[in-house]
């Protein structure tokens, strides 16, 4: 057997994928072959070198942001028993109603926790990107939220937020399209029914993100109502330009 094949076995040995007692030839070969012994030592040194290899840049300044995120997550976790209690009370109420035959059970849709969890993760991530001013990275998440969400409040916030990103990129027609799609979904006047204040209080851990989106939502409310009318698109673009120059975004 050639040295290269023994060396391949030595690499497996280093990874605990081979028991040397099951390979007496290897042991014998190591005793005789200085080249393979050296190679084995070199492999060990290489692994150690890469494990301790130092990062070629200064230490990242991430502690502050991380502590903020963790504080948000901690407060959210403290809310869980309360949310669970409300959820159980709701389910109990629904069951009682069904039991008394007041509602047809086919019409009831109970929101499952699994429906909510992905959104919470995405919103957490968005908060992080917003703090880091990484708009480009927020974009795909916002698009996912819009595409996969039927919750009108989350949809409203995500749409306005995405419009904000587009305006920053000076892609005004994209911004209009997002707002227009949203207005179609909400049948124009839905925006008036969105209870932002209760949304903010329910999602207090994401207030930085939501407050900005809320301000934007209010500023653009009139635009959304007319976004479908193509004749007004040029006017809206002008208005969006003016709004962005006025540092509303």
């Amino acid at each position, binding site marked *: 057997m050639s040295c290269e094949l023994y060396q*391949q076995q030595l690499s497996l040995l280093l990874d605990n994928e081979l028991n040397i007692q099951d390979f007496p030839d290897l042991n014998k070969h190591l005793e005789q072959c200085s080249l393979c012994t050296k190679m084995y030592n070199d492999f060990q040194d290489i692994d150690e070198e890469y494990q301790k290899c130092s990062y070629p840049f200064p230490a990242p300044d991430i*502690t502050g942001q991380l502590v903020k995120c963790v504080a948000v997550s901690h407060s959210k976790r403290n809310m869980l028993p309360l949310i669970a209690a409300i959820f159980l009370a709701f389910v109990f109420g629904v069951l009682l109603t069904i039991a008394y035959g007041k509602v047809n059970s086919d019409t009831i849709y109970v929101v499952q926790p699994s429906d909510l969890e992905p959104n919470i993760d995405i919103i957490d991530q968005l908060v992080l990107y917003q703090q880091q001013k990484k708009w480009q990275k927020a974009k795909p998440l916002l698009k996912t939220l819009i595409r996969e969400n039927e919750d009108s409040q989350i949809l409203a916030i995500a749409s306005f937020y995405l419009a904000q990103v587009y305006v920053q990129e000076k892609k005004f027609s994209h911004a209009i399209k997002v707002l227009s799609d949203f207005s179609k979904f909400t049948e124009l006047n839905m925006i008036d029914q969105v209870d932002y204040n209760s949304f903010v209080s329910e999602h207090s851990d994401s207030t930085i993100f939501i407050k900005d989106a809320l301000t934007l939502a209010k500023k653009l409310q009139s635009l959304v109502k007319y976004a479908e009318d193509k004749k007004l698109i040029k006017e809206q673009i002008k208005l969006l330009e003016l709004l962005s120059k006025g540092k509303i975004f």
Partner: protein
Amino acid sequence: MDEWLIKRARSGDQEAFSMLVLRHQMFVVNICYQFLRVREDAEDTTQEVFIKLYRNSSQYQAQGKFRSYLAKIATNECLNRLRREKKMKTVRLEEYTHANVPPTKEENISPKLQEALDQLPTRQRLAFLMKIHGKACYESIASELECPVSAVGSLIFRARQTLQRKLKSSSEEQEASQ
């Protein structure tokens, strides 16, 4: 110390958590940089690693070394990121090398170890890093790289062999120049 810090952080002690981050951030960012080869991505992923550490801290058993646990999270997060990038860019994982990313100014000053690592084929590099940092078994490396288990040993061996040659020749060059 780390177990105590993580317990304190879990109960809402922010100082304990920031101390934990400060103690280990260079260790984590180093692993992420070796996988991702882009400074910004490495630092973003480092943040994600610590957030994950916090969220899953109840799962941490104080039996093993804390850094090994952290290295496993870092390895998984890097692989997740590469997978996401792959999805977004619709390129295959093996085609996703740092060569696809425009080099930044800072990357020109990488040390010889990094240079040697950069020159490895992507699958060899990932298999090697998953083994030495994530302590992953060959089965999980194989499933990650979508290759037979028998090929993993060969990938890691080739990586070690190439690194050994490159580092040897670079130290010989250095000696000759002196």
